[in-house]
C-alpha cells in the first residue's frame, strides 16, 4: 500500500506504478522503492517510444512501397520487420562525424533534445484507462509546450552544424513550427472547451461522440498543423532533399542521425496517439476496461497509416505556400471553429457535455467544416496558382534572408 509518509505523488493513480511500488516496498525503504518504480515506468516508456518509432519506420516504408506500387523492405525478418534493427546497427557502426567549424556542445545536444521532447510528450498520453504516466490537469498545454521545445533543437542543429543548408533548413523548419503553433493551439481550444478540461484523461471520458465528428474542423486543422510541425510531406521544406540536401540534419551521421530519425518517427507515433486521444475517443471501445490499450493501439496505427497515406499522396509545397496556407486558411478556419464552438457551448444547457448535445454539435459542425474547408481551399488555390504572383516580386514570408558573414 502506498504509504503517506513518503508523501503524495502524482504517480499515485497509476496502477502499474502502484504495482511495482507495493512489490518493492515490501523489502526496501519506501524512497528506494519509489525511485525504482519510477525508473521502471520511464524505462518502459522510453523503450515504447523507441521501439514504436522503429516499428513505424518499417510500417511506413512498407506502406509507401505499396503506395508506390513496389514491395518495400522485405529482406530481413518476416515481411522485413527487422529492417529497422538492421538500419540501426548500420548507423551505429558508422563514424560519428562532427564538422570542423561546429559548436560541439550544441551539436551534440541536438539529438538528445529531440528524443527528449518526444519522450516527454508521451508522459501525459493515456494509453488506456488510468494508464497515463501523469494525467496532468494541463495535459494539452503540456503537450504543446513540450513539442515547442523541438524548435530550439531545430535551431541548435541548424546553427551548430556550421552549414548553410542546415541553417536554411532550420530557419524554414522553425518558421513553419512557430507559425503552425497558432492554429494548432486555437483548434485545440474547441476540444478543451467541450471537455471542460485540459486533462487528456478527462477529454477521453468527455467524448460521448468521438470528437472527430464533434470538431471536424479542429481535427482537420490539428492533423495539418501537426504534419507541418513534424516536417512531414507536404510540409517538409525543412528537409527538402531536392533543395537543401537534408536540411537541418545534413551534417549528422552515425548514432546522432539514428536518434534524430528515431525522434522523427517517435514524434509521428506520439502525435498519432494524441490525435487518437483527442479526436478518436482514446481507449474507448468495447470492453474498454480491459481492452482499452488495444483500441488505443489500433486507432494510433490507423492515424499513422493516415500520415503515411498523406505523405505518399501530396507533393511538397513551397515555403510561401505553406506560410500562406497557415495564415490565410488555417488561422481563419481555426477562428471560425473557435467561434462556432464557443457559441454552441454557451447556448447548450450542459455546455456540450451530454451525448445529445454532442450530436447536436455534430449536426452543426460537420456541415460547417464541409463548407468551410473547400471554400478556403478554393481561395488558396486561386492565390497559389502559378503565375498569379509576378516571379520577381515573390514574397516568401517567414523565411529570413541569412546574412553571409
Amino acid at each position, binding site marked *: 500500500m502506498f504509504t503517506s509518509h513518503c508523501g503524495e505523488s502524482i504517480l499515485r493513480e497509476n496502477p502499474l506504478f502502484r504495482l511495482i511500488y507495493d512489490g518493492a516496498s515490501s523489502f526496501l525503504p519506501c524512497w528506494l522503492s519509489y525511485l525504482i518504480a519510477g525508473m521502471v515506468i520511464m524505462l518502459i516508456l522510453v523503450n515504447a517510444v523507441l521501439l514504436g518509432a522503429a516499428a513505424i519506420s518499417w510500417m511506413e516504408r512498407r506502406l509507401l512501397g505499396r503506395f508506390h506500387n513496389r514491395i518495400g523492405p522485405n529482406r530481413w525478418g518476416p515481411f522485413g520487420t527487422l529492417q529497422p534493427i538492421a538500419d540501426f546497427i548500420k548507423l551505429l557502426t558508422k563514424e560519428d562525424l562532427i564538422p570542423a567549424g561546429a559548436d560541439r556542445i550544441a551539436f551534440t545536444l541536438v539529438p538528445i533534445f529531440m528524443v527528449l521532447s518526444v519522450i516527454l510528450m508521451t508522459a501525459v498520453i493515456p494509453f488506456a484507462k488510468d494508464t497515463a504516466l501523469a494525467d496532468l490537469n494541463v495535459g494539452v498545454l503540456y503537450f504543446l509546450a513540450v513539442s515547442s521545445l523541438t524548435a*530550439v533543437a531545430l535551431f541548435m542543429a541548424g546553427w551548430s552544424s556550421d552549414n548553410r543548408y542546415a541553417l536554411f533548413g532550420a530557419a524554414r523548419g522553425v518558421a513553419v513550427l512557430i507559425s503552425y503553433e497558432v492554429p494548432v493551439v486555437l483548434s485545440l481550444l474547441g476540444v478543451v472547451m467541450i471537455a471542460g478540461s485540459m486533462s487528456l484523461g478527462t477529454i477521453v471520458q468527455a467524448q460521448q461522440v468521438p470528437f472527430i465528428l464533434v470538431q471536424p474542423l479542429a481535427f482537420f486543422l490539428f492533423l495539418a498543423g501537426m504534419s507541418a510541425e513534424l516536417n512531414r510531406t507536404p510540409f517538409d521544406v525543412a528537409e527538402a532533399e531536392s533543395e537543401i540536401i537534408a536540411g537541418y540534419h545534413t551534417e549528422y551521421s552515425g548514432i546522432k542521425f539514428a536518434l534524430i530519425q528515431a525522434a522523427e518517427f517517435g514524434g509521428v507515433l506520439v502525435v498519432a496517439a494524441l490525435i487518437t486521444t483527442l479526436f478518436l475517443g482514446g481507449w474507448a471501445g468495447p470492453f474498454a476496461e480491459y481492452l482499452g490499450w488495444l483500441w488505443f493501439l489500433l486507432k494510433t496505427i490507423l492515424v499513422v497509416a493516415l500520415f503515411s497515406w498523406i505523405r505518399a499522396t501530396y507533393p511538397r509545397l513551397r515555403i510561401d505556400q505553406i506560410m500562406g496556407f497557415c495564415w490565410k486558411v488555417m488561422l481563419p478556419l481555426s477562428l471560425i471553429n473557435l467561434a462556432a464552438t464557443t457559441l454552441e457551448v454557451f447556448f447548450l444547457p450542459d455546455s456540450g457535455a451530454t451525448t445529445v448535445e454532442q450530436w447536436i454539435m455534430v449536426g452543426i459542425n460537420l456541415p460547417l467544416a464541409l463548407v468551410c474547408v473547400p471554400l478556403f481551399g478554393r481561395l488558396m488555390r486561386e492565390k497559389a496558382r502559378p503565375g498569379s504572383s509576378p516571379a520577381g516580386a515573390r514574397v516568401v514570408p517567414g523565411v529570413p534572408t541569412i546574412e553571409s558573414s
Partner: protein
Amino acid sequence: MLFQDIVQDVVFWVLSVAAIGAALGVVLVRDLFRAVLLLAGVFIAMAGFFVLLSAEFLAVVQVLIYVGAISILFIFAIMLTRNVRQGNLPNRLQIPAVLFSTLLLAALVVVATSTEWNLIPDGAKTGVDLVQTQSVNVLSPEALEVLERAGALSDEERLQAEKAGLADLLIGPFVLPFEAVSVLLLAALIGGLALARPPGRA
C-alpha cells in the same frame, strides 16, 4: 523530515544552481547563440521552480511561451544580425553595473530575510496547495477527496475550492488588467508588424 520534503529540497538546490549558473552564462558568455541556449535553460529551470511551487499552469505556460516562442524569437533576431560568435561584449559600464547589482542584491536579501512574512497558516496549506495546483480546472473529485482527507475543508471552503481557478480570477476581479493586457498584445502585434516591415514598402 518527510521524504517528499527532501526531494523538494534537492530539486530546489539543483534548479537554483542550474538557473543561476545559466543566468550567469547568459550575461558572461560571448557567443550569443550559446547565450540564448543558456537563456532557454534559465527558462526551463524557472518552469521547474513553478512546478515546485505548485504552479503547474504557469510552468507549462512558461515553457510554451518563453522556451517555445521567446527563445526562438531571440535566435531569429541573432541570426538576422551580425557578429554572433563574439557579439556579447561588455560595455564601459562594467564597474558601476557590478557595483549596483551587488548593492541591489544585498538590499533585496536584507529585505527578504528581515521582513516578517505573514505566512500561510499550516491549516490552510493543503487547501492553498491544491487550489494552486489545480488552478486551471474546477477541482476534480479526487482532488477534493485529498482536501477532505487533509481535514482542511469546511463546507464553505469546499464551495470556494470548487470555484477557484485562474480563469475565474482573470474574468472576475482582474478583468480590467486582463482586457488591458489584451489590448497591449494587439498593439504589440500591430507594432511588431509595422516595425518588421521593410522600409519603403507602404
